[in-house]
């Protein structure tokens, strides 16, 4: 059983309590900076911010439903080479898991960071977040949390959780050094701190917090969230499968694609420096387009769109953590997150692998096992 502590919330002010918790981290001798989502001054956006001045942390808003990008890419930037100092990073479960994938791909490491994970009730797509914020951006987080913790997925007439979050079965930060728990908690009174690693336990000890068991209802609360999401995951996958189970249907599903590659930019685990689709390989000769058109009588422009998505599936569905940023980034609202999550669940199941689960598990395509996929290579064992 992981070591847990309860953090008291003064004046029913969750954000204030979180800020003071984060300040206490900055006060720790080992921690030089905290990276946390913060309300940006001058507008209502919330963005990850690297903070060294404890005073600035009052604007920290880790539970904001804003999710402009998957922060794993930022952590990778901080840790690709050792910064020499330790940073505490506040991350959602899907961000942590994406980072673990990047570490396996040598795009970062975990030695120089403390991962503070949060229970994630879900996020909103950029437009929806702005809608929900509306005229009262100050209370967005409170309004969101109140409804979300009540099990709601609809927040306003036109605002609901995106499919990626509705089907996410990882609401609790499993790989974090310290998790901040709000499921099954009275967030007017206390949030839960649980150490998931030795590093986290050491930190809890240094912070001088009383070790306390989580309240009885927590486990049940988490369980019911997960089972609800599993149920909707099944429905969504079935629906997507129906829509994409032939090459023609798949092409139709992706027909809105314009090769903007926003999805791959937004994808936390698409880690190539330069995607093969922007290299000379796809820089076709002009006569080539005409040749194709001649052969079939017509050719959709831009070309290579389905090929692009298939390639991306081949390259990254074993690492996909289902964060939904691909859908968030798509200018033409192609429901990519559902498609990629479904494919990922197949590829990962096939290798008995789960993206982000453990640093100990090597990426499936980097491992050769003689006895796997016997049915593919037609060897019976």
């Amino acid at each position, binding site marked *: 059983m992981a070591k847990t502590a309860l953090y008291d919330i003064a004046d029913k002010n969750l954000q204030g309590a979180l800020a003071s918790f984060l300040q206490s981290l900055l006060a720790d001798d080992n921690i030089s900076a905290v990276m946390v989502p913060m309300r940006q001054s001058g507008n209502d956006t919330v963005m990850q911010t690297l903070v060294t001045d404890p005073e600035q942390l009052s604007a920290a808003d880790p539970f904001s439903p804003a999710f402009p990008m998957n922060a794993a890419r930022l952590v990778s930037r901080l840790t690709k080479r050792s910064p020499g100092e330790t940073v505490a990073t506040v991350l959602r479960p899907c961000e942590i898991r994406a980072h673990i994938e990047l570490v396996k791909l040598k795009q970062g490491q975990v030695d120089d960071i403390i991962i503070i994970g949060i229970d994630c009730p879900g996020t909103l797509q950029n437009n929806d977040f702005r809608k929900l914020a509306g005229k009262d951006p100050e209370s967005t987080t409170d309004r969101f949390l109140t409804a979300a913790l009540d099990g709601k997925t609809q927040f306003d007439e036109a605002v609901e959780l995106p499919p990626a979050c509705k089907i996410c079965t990882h609401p609790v930060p499993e790989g974090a050094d310290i998790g901040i728990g709000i499921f099954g908690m009275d967030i007017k009174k206390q949030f839960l701190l649980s150490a998931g690693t030795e590093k986290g336990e050491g930190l809890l000890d240094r912070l001088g917090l009383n070790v306390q068991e989580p309240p009885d209802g927590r486990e049940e609360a988490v369980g019911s969230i997960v089972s609800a999401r599993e149920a909707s995951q099944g429905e969504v996958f079935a629906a997507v499968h129906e829509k994409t189970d032939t090459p023609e249907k798949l092409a139709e599903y992706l027909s809105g694609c314009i090769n903007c590659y926003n999805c791959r930019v937004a994808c936390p685990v698409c880690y190539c*420096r330069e995607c093969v689709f922007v290299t000379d390989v796809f820089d076709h000769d002009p006569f080539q387009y005409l040749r194709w058109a001649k052969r079939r009588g017509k050719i959709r422009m831009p070309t290579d769109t389905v090929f692009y998505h298939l390639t991306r599936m081949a390259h*990254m569905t074993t690492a996909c953590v289902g964060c939904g940023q691909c859908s968030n980034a798509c200018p033409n609202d192609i429901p990519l997150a559902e498609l990629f999550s479904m494919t990922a669940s197949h590829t990962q199941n096939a290798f008995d692998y789960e993206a982000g689960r453990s640093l100990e598990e090597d990426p499936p395509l980097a491992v050769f096992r003689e006895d796997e996929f016997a049915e593919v290579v037609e060897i019976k064992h």
Partner: protein
Amino acid sequence: MKPKIGRALVVGGGISGIRAALDLAETGYPVTLVDRAPHLGGVLSQLDNQFPTNHCGMCRMLPLVDRDAGAQYCLRKGLFHENIDIRTSTQVVGIEGEAGNFTVRLKRQPGFVDPVACIGCGRCADACSVSVADDFNAGLSMRKAIYLPVPHMLPNTYVIDPAACTRCGECINVCPTGAIRLYREGRQDFSVLVVDDEYTVRDSIKEWLEEEGFSVETVGSGEEALDLIKQQSFRMMLLDIKMPGIDGVEVLKKAKDLFPDMTVVMMTAYATVETAVEAMKTGAMDYLMKPFDPEDLAGKVIGVYEAEEAARAEEIEAGAVVFCGGSEGYDPSTGKNTFGYKVFSDVVTGLEFERLISGTGPGGGGALLRPSNGEPVKKIAWIQCVGSRDLQTDSDYCSGVCCMYAIKEAMLAKEHGPEDLESTIFYMDMRTVGKAFQRFRDAAETDQGVRFVRGRVHTVYQDTHTGKLVVSYPGEKSRRIEEDYDMVVLSTGQKPSSGTDKLAEAAGIELNPWGFVRGEPFLPAKTSREGIFCGGSFSGPKDIAESVISACSASLLASATMHSAGKGIAVAGDDTPEYIDVSHQAPKVRVILCECGGSLPEGIDLRRLAAGLEADPFVESVSFVSRICTEEGWESLAEKVKTKGYNRLLVGACTPYAYTRRIRELGGEVMLDPSLMDVCDIRSPEFAYGEETGGDAIEKAMRRSLSTGISRLRSVDPLPKQTVPVTRSALVVGGGIAGMTAALAIAEHGYDVHLVEASEHPGGNLGWLHSTVEGNDTAILLEDTTQRIEKHPLVHVHTNTTVVSAFGEVGNFFTTIETADSGPQTIQHGVVLIATGGREAETRSYGYGTSDAIVTQKELEEKVAAKAIDYSAIESVCMIQCVDSREEPRNYCSRVCCPSTLKHILQMKQQNPDISVYILYRDMMSPGFAESWYTEARKAGAVFIPYTTYAKPVVSQGEEGGSKVVISTREPLLDADVQIHADLLVLATGIVPNLPEELAGAFGAECDEDGFFREAESKWRPVDSLKEGVFGCGIALGPGSIEGSVATAGAAAQRALRILSKNAISPAAVTARVRHSLCVTCERCIAVCPYGARSIDPDTNRVLVNAVMCQGCGNCASECPNSASVLDGFFDGRMLDMIDMVME
């Protein structure tokens, strides 16, 4: 590469012959490889699965350095190397001259099908009306009289089985290239005399032979026969042995005196078989056993006729000869056949079993079905030692391979049969003598549920009611148990290859008592004749790994012979032709198409095809040659490429792999990089036309193939390759017999060798060993070897020295060694051989240390040598085998202990015949000819009692004050406890390796789980590490005998010489590289590279590729998501282009 002066002849194209030929070819010698069969591959062409992977893997023997010298093609399909000249259907009939200067006479068997003209279309076989049992499928399926000897061989040309062919001529009519010719016309001139006192016999023979077109005379007595041959000339005589008056043997003698060239075949009944065999010594070619059927008889006569017609002996010069004639499977129907082989169709040999489950086998599907009724096999048994360890079949030796293949087959049976298949192996001793063998066996038992039953099965019969095979064997208390099986597999052993005696006579080499070629003591690859060597199972039963090792070691000796005869010195310099640089030119492809002598199917318009191709802006021109496969055709092609105006060449023909070497030569002539030249298949039977048939479809497929070829050539980027210079010296770590042997072998080829030995003197375990079970004196070997080491100017011995650190790669290693007195020193070398050996394992088992009467084998050996043990004063000795061995954690057989035990028994019994000797063993491991010493030890009166790991012997002190120890064990045959009061208890503790993990790691090699050198592949690359340039030999590789160590040392030296014989190694055309601008150093390419050719440079943070080590497999390129890692010649763009062309 410039050929050296000496040519090597390799006889036999099985696995050993291929290995030897490749070794010599890779070292730079031109090689002539002959095989009497119409194809290469030997028995392995019939075996699909090899343990321990249960796959094939033969391709792992392909050249790894200078890969482009050979085609990278499945070795079971064909061997293509520019230094190897292959002659099939050819036999050696004589060798004259001496080592370094042999003249070898080769005789080619008649070929009725011209292999050059045959395009393998198969129309002949369709037309042939004869159907006979197919040898390839061990007689389990049928084939035509004109057939493909191995269905998957390339190039695959048809051959005619003269014994089965009726000479109807149908095949000649349908052959599109006129490749078939028969000799029927000449048969009238071939006169045969039939001599038999029984009218019915001679008359029917006359009738049969006249039907075949021969002219036949008959006489009824020897007297008449002798009269007639003086009046009339006969080419052949069929002669009955038992006749009133002058009998056959007398006639034979007289006839041979008069006409020595006349072929005589004796005819005999069972009672006079021995006489017939005797008659063969007098000059009869063969004998036929009565009653015979017309086909056998006609086949024999036709065979003689055709051999005489077509055999033309040809002479070639060879510096050295390597015989790899292989062995033959024992035929159980020849002996007493108590297993009902060929009587019950569900009784098969191991080979037949493998054919049954093969995808190319008689069933085709590979499911395990009963031949008798096609039902699935649910219960199957293997019977071991059929034709092995059996004096009744003249085999007082162990075939060494059957135990492992039976286990493998039992596991394969599980794959090919139903889930709940029950399999049983009946054995005497499971001889799991190799490194990983015991674990393989254990896995078969525990994971796969294979049942192992100790007991020799003597009879298999069929239950007439159920059709099941009944196997009876001695069970508990030796009671007979009978069990029903659906199939019984006979694990047939190895016998000397037929004709070994004749070949040995022709070559002037001696055979051993078992009919195999006799090897020199400690050097089995060396025959009794200087300059002639022997690899593989020609010198005794061997498995694949042993065959490969012995072939390597034989090729080393051949190389040394040629070298010392002054024929190996030509140094391969920088002889790569200066190709024209075309990198800045726009691609211009010249296309030349073969018209196949006008035999293309109807509806194909080559001109139309050419016009279509010429529309491509990258095509320079399209022209035609009538038949490229003929010499004229090739010359015409060579003429067409002489005119300038192009920078890429595409040839459309059949069997592209066959042209690899010629294309390279052509490239040298016109100074065009061969990578800019390609041959495209538009004709072979393998060439896929698609589902449609008819000229249109074929023409379309041809266009597709050619367009693909054009786009492939178009995007070839002929970048110059960096060669890797080679430091032409070797480091040998370990100065035991293996290290010394390897060092000498390399030095004798003219290269510097540093021999590093940790102790004060070289010699290793030979320091305490005194003799072998064969009675060979190890002291002489040690003294001889150390003297040669000391005297050789190129061997630099560093004693009291250890390796401190090392880095580098093939061609250039830098190793720091430290000598006790003189401090560190860094040596640069091109290759490294690890020969760190092993030592006797220590033990605390069986009361060791509690009594002076308990000693290890080594202590016994030393005490005997020091005369500290007097056998005459000893009443009783007990020996325990497998102490702490063959069970976890040391779960391997140490190989040497059982032969040592046999040696000790014979020594004791010789000195004191009354001494009682008890050996407690699990499985006596005396593979090969060592079996005969096991027989001797038993004859000497030693009592062998088996024990199991579940009930090990217990050792206790004897009576108070007495010097005896008491060993209690269970005697399983009597099912009773036994107490042995022994004056001496000898423990066989086995061998542990001396190889520190760090030492192996320093050179980039690895240790296996038991601490031995991890070989790249246990069967096909048994002395290499995965990292090129690092080799293991001797006990460092695994436990083995002195002979084994010498053989692996030779093999490792040979592997090293491939590299040392070059100034520089040039990488192959196809290797991988990294486009650093795209690379994010995720290092997945490093993880997936099977050859360790990739590393990350910590300074620049870049992924580096060693082009020489890279084998161009493409794993890295397919792993890399954004093609930062690419395989030259396989860029994404090019591949997409080609796919596009194929899809057109």
